């Protein structure tokens, strides 16, 4: 047997051995895979069995929830009226249009929360039927002038308009009206503005020693007329000289003794 033939036989033998080794190893690996897949198939079967009734249960839950939602939405639509979509939009942004679509309504959805606060919008809609949501959300605020606070304020008119409020008086050194202390209580140290300077001032009468309060002509006009109409003083030391409007130290008219 030649050398070349011997080498060929060895090579063929080595190739057959290698084939056998690798194929047998592959067979063992495939057997392991088969066993693993058997375990997986068992677990998947359990999953399928456990999830089988979920569809029915979830369908029943969904049908119940949809029924409850329909009840509430129909009630809300009945009570809130055309503002229902806007109220839903104010609470759940983006849901107003879906709400209108579900209830079979159409039209623009105005977020009432943009115009009114939530509580005001709901109370206005439920209580007064105010036309909230009548304009676009980006437009000016829509308020019913019939129910505005300005209209309510006109129920209590006050000088200067409905919004006018009486101003608090300014006291102290910053007061625009400053008073001076007088030597005699009840007697002005200076005549008021508009009073004739030449008129006799009130004060102590040096002849009688009494305190007299002298009035201006226009102040004394009405009492003078009344004094002329009423019985004049019966007489006395100052009955003819003193004016009827004078008061003596006791605060009485000359004829009131």
């Amino acid at each position, binding site marked *: 047997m*030649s050398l*070349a*033939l011997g*080498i*060929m036989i060895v*090579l*063929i033998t*080595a*190739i057959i051995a*290698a*084939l056998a080794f*690798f*194929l047998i*190893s*592959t067979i063992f*690996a*495939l057997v*392991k*895979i088969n066993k*693993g*897949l058997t*375990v*997986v198939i068992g*677990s*998947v079967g*359990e*999953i399928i069995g*456990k*999830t089988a*009734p*979920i569809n029915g*249960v*979830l369908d*029943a*839950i969904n049908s*119940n*929830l949809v*029924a*409850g939602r329909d*009840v*509430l939405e129909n*009630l809300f639509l*009945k*009570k*809130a*009226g*055309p*503002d*229902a979509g806007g109220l839903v939009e104010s609470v759940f942004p983006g849901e107003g249009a879906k709400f209108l679509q579900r209830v079979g309504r159409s039209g623009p959805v105005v977020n009432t929360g943009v115009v009114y606060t939530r509580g005001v919008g709901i109370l206005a*809609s*439920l209580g007064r*039927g105010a036309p909230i949501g009548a304009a676009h959300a980006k437009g000016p605020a829509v308020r019913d002038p019939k129910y505005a606070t300005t209209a309510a304020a006109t129920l209590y008119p006050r000088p200067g308009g409905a919004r006018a409020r009486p101003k608090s008086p300014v006291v102290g050194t910053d007061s625009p009206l400053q008073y001076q202390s007088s030597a005699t209580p009840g007697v002005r140290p200076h005549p008021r503005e508009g009073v004739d300077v030449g008129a006799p001032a009130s004060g102590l009468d040096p002849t009688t020693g009494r305190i007299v309060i002298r009035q201006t002509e226009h102040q004394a006009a009405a009492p003078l007329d009344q004094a002329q109409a009423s019985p004049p003083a019966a007489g006395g030391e100052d009955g003819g000289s003193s004016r009827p409007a004078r008061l003596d130290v006791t605060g009485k008219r000359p004829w009131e003794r």
Partner: protein
Amino acid sequence: MIWLWIMNVILVVSAVLLIALLRGVLGAAKSIVPRVDAIAGVAAAASRDLDAVVVLLTTQNYISQIVGSLANYGGSLDVALPDA
């Protein structure tokens, strides 16, 4: 005689190529085994997690009762509140 040597060379080249291919097949088969084991573990855990599905039946019962109460509440509101 020369043909025998040529055949020997061809056999050597074929043996090397065959061994390389078989090594690739064996490596791929062995790499599948741990992944299948991992999948088996995950499937078993998922199966255990689904044991709580039975609780959905209780949830369904509760929701049914809640919807009934909701309907009664809506009926009361319908009477209490004026229509728009």
